[in-house]
């Protein structure tokens, strides 16, 4: 075939049909822009939801009269249990300081420290929290719950909180996924419609080409190349805009608020590659498929 000729044809049609070409390019641009913003947002949301879920913890309150040796022994025992990710000792003093910071006036009134020592246990996953709680306070033969270790006073696994958090994070994740699907569907419709419109305007042209004796591939190649070029221009423009937005708006924010940076998001490089590939693919496939209809003369 003659790539040079087809390339020239493609660029010529883009120049001569400036407005439809611009519309197609703009729709690719908008789509990529939306996706480029939305993919990190979805990732951040699910990341944040996971983060919240990971904060589900079990507190084992210790009796007031336990010795340091007993505390250390219990710590080893807890670490050896199933599904336990991390065990952290919070001493009375630490707990008092923590609480006093939250509610200074109340603790001022209190005077002495009423708080016990406690072990804060982080489970492997939020769903394991209840199992660990049960393991620490199994139901005894009398039907009452008793701690597995004499130094443990009570165990609070915040069952309600845990369940609430897991269900909320599920909803958040599902909503994000549904929104992403809707956006992708809208983008595909937008692009295919734009391409179809610009092709419909050139239906006569295709008809004439066929009458002069052009083969299908001879007609199709310039259109496909046109799709690649428009997809490339739209995609690159969108990525440049995204890059500017990231540098100008997002990066300063992450410096100021550590929270925003906390959830894991895709780094910019792979995101750019994915977006660019998607832009070119959709644009090319759109023009190729829409053309099929008009080639049947």
């Amino acid at each position, binding site marked *: 075939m*003659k790539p040079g*000729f087809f390339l020239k044809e493609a660029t*010529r*049609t883009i120049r*001569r*049909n400036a407005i439809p070409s611009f519309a197609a390019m703009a729709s690719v641009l908008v789509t990529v822009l939306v996706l480029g913003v939305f993919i990190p947002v979805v990732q951040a949301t699910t990341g944040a939801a996971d983060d919240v879920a990971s904060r589900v913890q079990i507190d084992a309150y210790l009796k007031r009269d336990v010795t340091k040796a007993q505390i250390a022994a219990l710590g080893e025992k807890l670490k050896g249990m199933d599904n336990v990710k991390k065990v952290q000792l919070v001493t009375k003093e630490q707990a008092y300081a923590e609480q006093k910071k939250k509610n200074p006036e109340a603790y001022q009134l209190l005077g002495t420290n009423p708080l016990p020592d406690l072990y804060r246990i982080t489970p492997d996953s939020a769903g394991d929290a209840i199992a660990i709680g049960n393991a620490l306070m199994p139901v005894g033969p009398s039907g009452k719950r008793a701690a597995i270790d004499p130094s443990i006073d009570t165990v609070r696994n915040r069952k309600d909180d845990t369940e609430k958090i897991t269900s909320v994070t599920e909803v958040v994740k599902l909503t994000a996924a549904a929104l992403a699907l809707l956006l992708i569907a809208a983008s595909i419709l937008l692009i295919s419609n734009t391409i179809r419109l610009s092709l419909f305007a050139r*239906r*006569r*042209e295709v*008809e*004439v*080409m*066929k*009458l*002069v*004796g*052009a*083969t*299908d591939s*001879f007609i199709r190649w310039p259109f496909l190349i046109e799709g690649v070029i428009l997809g490339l221009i739209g995609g690159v423009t969108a990525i440049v805009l995204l890059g500017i937005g990231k540098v100008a708006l997002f990066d300063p924010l992450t410096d100021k608020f550590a929270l925003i940076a906390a959830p894991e998001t895709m780094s910019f490089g792979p995101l750019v590659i994915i977006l660019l590939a998607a832009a070119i693919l959709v644009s090319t496939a759109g023009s190729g498929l829409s053309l099929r*209809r*008009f080639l*049947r*003369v």
Partner: protein
Amino acid sequence: MAATEQPLRRARTRRAAEAAGPVPAAPRSTVPADPNAVIQLRGVSKIYDHATGAGLKQATFSITPGEFVFLVGQSGSGKSTLMRLLLKELEPSAGSIIVAGRDLGELTRKKVPYYRRNVGVVFQDFKLLPNRTVYDNVAYALQVTGHSRKDIRAKVPDVLRLTGLSTRLHNYPDQLSGGEQQRVSVARAFVNHPPLLLADEPTGNLDPETSIGIMQLLYRINRAGTTVVVATHDSAMVDRMRRRVIELNDGLVVRDEQAGAYTARDENTAEFGALMRGEPAPAPKRMADLGPDELFDDAFRDDGRTPR
């Protein structure tokens, strides 16, 4: 015909053809294949499944190379159907069409473009590519067939000179008059030097004087050896030209006049133009060449005018 209607109609036709199942064997054996004919129709019928379209009924005739044939008839008599059948835009419901010894029915879809390269076409609405210059429009017909750039640069100006468009090379179609656009269309049809040129109402959108220019052009192409088939409803023009006339009425071939007294290649283009205008031809040269009896034939006798 509304352009938007065409794909629909085609789809419907295709569906109807599928519904009808295998086409019953046409009486193709009644007419023997003519090895000399450039176009041969043998019992060709085209039935549209909706009433409005012009069909074709049992059309049988052949056209020999170098002929100039008029296809006349009212709107809806089947002229355009016949043209589209010859381009293999449509498939006949029955019968067979043989062009240059090849049965169009046996042509696969893939081969259609290669077939069309051997047939020049001119339409009433010109069918030029709107975003290409005159030069590029004509060049496209050559690019399609894989001509080299050097070849194209040599051939296109030639054919544009022939059609009197040398000064319009870099204009776009919408900057041209109707007559000029049609000349571009003729140039494009002829640039490949096809053995066959079909023109469907080539003068339908043009004023009489411009029409004569286009017909002169087609005549000149015919004199260069190309078989030309012109569909038209302008019977006045046809009568003056004294060429073979095939008349269609409601899909039937009702008249096929083998040109009466006309003999091919007996006029130059200027004389032909004069003939078209209904004027006596510029006489001196002919006076010398021909006897007085041959000079004024039917067309002139009938119109009651006395030659100078």
